[in-house]
């Protein structure tokens, strides 16, 4: 119908990263899109970012999905399964803090329906307990040097910058 078409637009080739609210109004064009152009000429930084996402997708996501399917009382003490919003939040956090060469953490469900995310290697102990979205505790200690001060406490205001130094050490050591 003509009136439908009056306000429909054909996206001209730029990547649409904000697609979470798209209502599917746009039509794919047959031309070589700028999105493909970007994919082909993506910078090395972006490629590495994709590597992190791929690692999370292949090695972490299936594990987390399994935790969400645990029965209530999976630990024999009435623990709930991992909340799916906590799973999504944890993936978002890992995606933002991990670097391409950061080792993947050991991940276990917590008795409160959250997640323990831990690294214990290279003299570094880093533990992140995600209790629920935006409710996280962190504990960090570097036994090899005293340059990086230990951390213990809640992460306030979703500010994960506090993990930066620990992740840098895990990645570079």
């Amino acid at each position, binding site marked *: 119908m*003509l*009136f*439908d*078409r*009056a*306000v*429909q*637009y*054909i*996206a*001209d*080739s*730029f*990547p*649409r*990263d*904000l*697609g*979470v*609210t798209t*209502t*599917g*109004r*746009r*039509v794919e064009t047959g031309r070589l899109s*700028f999105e493909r152009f970007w994919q082909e000429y993506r910078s090395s930084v*972006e490629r590495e*970012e994709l590597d992190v*996402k791929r690692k*999370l*997708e292949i090695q972490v*996501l*299936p594990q987390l*999905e399994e935790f*969400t399917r645990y029965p209530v009382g999976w630990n024999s003490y009435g623990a709930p399964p991992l*909340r*799916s*919003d906590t799973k*999504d*939040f944890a*993936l*978002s*956090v890992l*995606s*933002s*803090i991990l670097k391409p060469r950061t080792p993947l953490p050991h991940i276990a469900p917590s008795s409160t329906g959250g997640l323990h995310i831990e690294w214990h290697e290279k003299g570094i102990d880093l533990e992140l307990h995600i209790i629920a*979205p*935006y409710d996280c505790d962190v504990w960090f200690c570097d036994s090899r040097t005293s340059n990086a001060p230990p951390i213990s406490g809640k992460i306030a*205001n*979703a*500010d*994960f*910058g*506090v*993990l*930066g130094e620990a*992740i840098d050490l895990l990645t570079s050591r």
Partner: protein
Amino acid sequence: MPTSHDRPPGLPDFKSPPVTEVVLSVQFAALSSFRGVHAGLYWREIRDEYPVVSEQVPIASAFETFGAAPPSSGFQLHLTAPQPARHWFETANGEHLVQLQQDRILHNWRKRSPEMEYPRYEPLRDKFIGEVERLNALVKKEGLGEIRPNQCEVTYINTIASVEGKSPHDHLSHITPLWTGNLSEPFLAALETTGIQTKYVLRKNDVPYGRVYINFIPAFSAADYSPVVQLEVTTRGKPDEESIAAAFVLLDEERAAVVRAFTSVTTPLMHKEWGRADVV
């Protein structure tokens, strides 16, 4: 219960804004037992107003975090487990759309013909409150839990057709101060088209709580293939608490942020064309 508010004083106001779509979204802790049959029960309650129903793939959840590397493009994984569908409930003319999935409810207003006027935010907000509270009552009644909002989102999609009769694709500097089009060398003489993506952190008392995403996208009108620029302004953030009341307080703030961001990234020339009414 949250109540409707008048337009905040001092907010930029346009007589003929180029808005063609508004999306209000509340993401909440997933109702793990929510299934298609429950969406059907919800539809039964709103069917008179929204008679057209369809299914779509679900929208991935999104969380704003700070301090570390910012999420570059909205973190989306290819989920391995099948996810319950997102349901669309549309009015007969397609102007209003309610979208529902197990962790999100949205209300879209869409300009479906050139004559259709933007109804303004306040009536849309009032409709959306009713829809969210109706859903909350249903999920409580069915023993599925309750709506506990964790992210709220407001998106305005604007369509800018021409700039003083010229194509907006190669006159983007007339539309936005973000783009000057200046070059260091004259080699690239004629600009064909460009797009811009920017994002900004929203702060309250210097504490970050959300982001604004600005996206200028060159496009073509499907009606006559004339060049247009689509300007999407999205705000997303975390409500102060996991309640519907707090979610709507945040949506109101985000809407104000969208309007101010829109005004900031567009030029006085365009403001005049759209009839900016709050300044002399």
